[in-house]
């Protein structure tokens, strides 16, 4: 069963990912992205990360992709990109080599280290099982977040402030009124 879920999700993920990179139209790409994100969310669930799965769906698929679509629609940048043409020579083979290299080497590293990544071997903390209470995950997460990672958590607030301020700054019209008028 787990295997089946994994394969399905993996297909979703990879299919979506491929969709993103081969869609000529940005809207299609965004929709493909949603597919991937859902696939990931499924795997989160499979890995007992229920809270994250929820956030994944809500924030990512819900907010971020919508934001993308919104921008696409807003700006009307819906012209298709002709993927037959590659203006930069050797870019694609190079990209392929790079991508394959990254995947290959990292995979090799993972495979080489597979013994140390045994399933749950170093466990000390109680990990809720699939059958367990989904609530436990959120609780643990919260405990961790507000104890060990409380500083990081606070730091995200700074990050969000930056994002807000940045957007304000960028979104200001390049006005004639300017500033020092």
């Amino acid at each position: 069963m787990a295997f089946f879920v994994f394969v399905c999700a993996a297909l979703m993920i990879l299919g979506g990912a491929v969709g993103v990179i081969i869609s000529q139209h940005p809207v299609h790409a965004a929709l493909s992205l949603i597919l991937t994100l859902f696939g990931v969310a499924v795997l989160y669930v499979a890995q007992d990360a229920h809270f994250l799965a929820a956030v994944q769906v809500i924030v990512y698929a819900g907010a971020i992709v919508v934001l993308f679509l919104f921008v696409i629609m807003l700006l009307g940048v819906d012209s298709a990109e002709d993927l037959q043409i590659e203006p930069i020579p050797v870019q694609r083979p190079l990209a392929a080599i790079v991508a394959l290299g990254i995947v290959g080497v990292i995979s090799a590293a993972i495979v080489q280290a597979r013994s140390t990544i045994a399933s749950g071997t170093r466990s000390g903390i109680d990990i809720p099982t699939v059958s367990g209470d989904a609530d436990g995950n959120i609780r643990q997460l919260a405990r961790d977040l507000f104890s060990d990672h409380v500083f990081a958590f606070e730091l995200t607030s700074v990050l969000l402030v930056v994002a807000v301020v940045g957007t304000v700054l960028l979104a200001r019209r390049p006005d004639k009124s300017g500033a020092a008028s």
Partner: protein
Amino acid sequence: MTATVALALEPTPVWYLLLAALLFGVGAFGVMIRRNPLIMFMCVELMLNAVNLSFVALARSLGDIGGQTTVFFVMVVAAAEVVVGLGIIVAILRRRPNTTADDMVELKG
């Protein structure tokens, strides 16, 4: 017979990690070949998702909730990035609609 075996197979964290690596590679590949800046962002999101997937798998394998916490942070970062990135893109596209990444080569050399 085969199906039974397949069903009996439990996906180990290694599988997840390999899947994540593959996803990461696809994302990276996308960044390198797509010209539409929006899609490039999407590809970056793919890469971040791949990392997240790894974190979750590792968290589970290690029995450590910290990995999941990290994913949470990454999501925040991704959100912030997207906001800012889209802000920049909007600023650019508002002036010059349908600009692709390849059109922005004023600065070079």
